[in-house]
């Protein structure tokens, strides 16, 4: 049954909630840990053969682990157009499949 509502009635009106919900946050933490685990597995496997890779070394140098990140960095990202320069991470396109952990210098 058609239920008239603004998103259905008004053509291109897409509603993304302003806040990120707590299950979404929990899943975000889970994904961050999963990526950490993949990097650890690959790094340990290479180390066992006495090898290393530039991309892994860079990751360890630059990226914080899930446990080391501030909640601010886990759930929000920098945006120069936003008030107070932060917006919720679920506004980032493909946010469940990209690694976004650090801020630009000074923010």
């Amino acid at each position: 049954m058609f239920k008239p509502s603004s998103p259905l009635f008004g053509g291109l009106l897409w509603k993304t909630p302003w806040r990120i919900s707590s299950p979404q946050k929990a899943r975000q933490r889970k994904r961050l840990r999963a990526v950490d685990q993949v990097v650890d597995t690959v790094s340990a496997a290479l180390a066992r053969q006495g090898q290393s890779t530039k991309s892994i070394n860079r990751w360890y140098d630059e990226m914080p682990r899930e446990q080391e990140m501030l909640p601010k960095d886990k759930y929000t990202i920098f945006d120069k157009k936003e008030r107070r320069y932060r917006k919720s991470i679920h506004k980032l396109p493909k946010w469940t499949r990209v690694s976004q952990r650090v801020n630009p210098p000074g923010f």
Partner: protein
Amino acid sequence: MNFFRITLTRSAIGLPRRTTDVLKSLGLKKRMGTVFHPVSQDIAGKIMRVKELVEVREIHLERKPDPGYYVEKRSTAEFLEQRGQ
């Protein structure tokens, strides 16, 4: 020889073209598909490009086919061997 066991858990739909190409070069076509690759730097680099989409485990044993025969042993020896395990 050690192997990476790589499973594609997230699809690359809508991601940049190069992500799909990396998956293709690893031999991953569909979600939940699994491939084995020897542990090496180039494979590690490829995994790093798609680390958000895959699940990786390290496999230590080389997979061997079933030899198709078994060697007879004295029952005492067999018993002790099983006990030891």
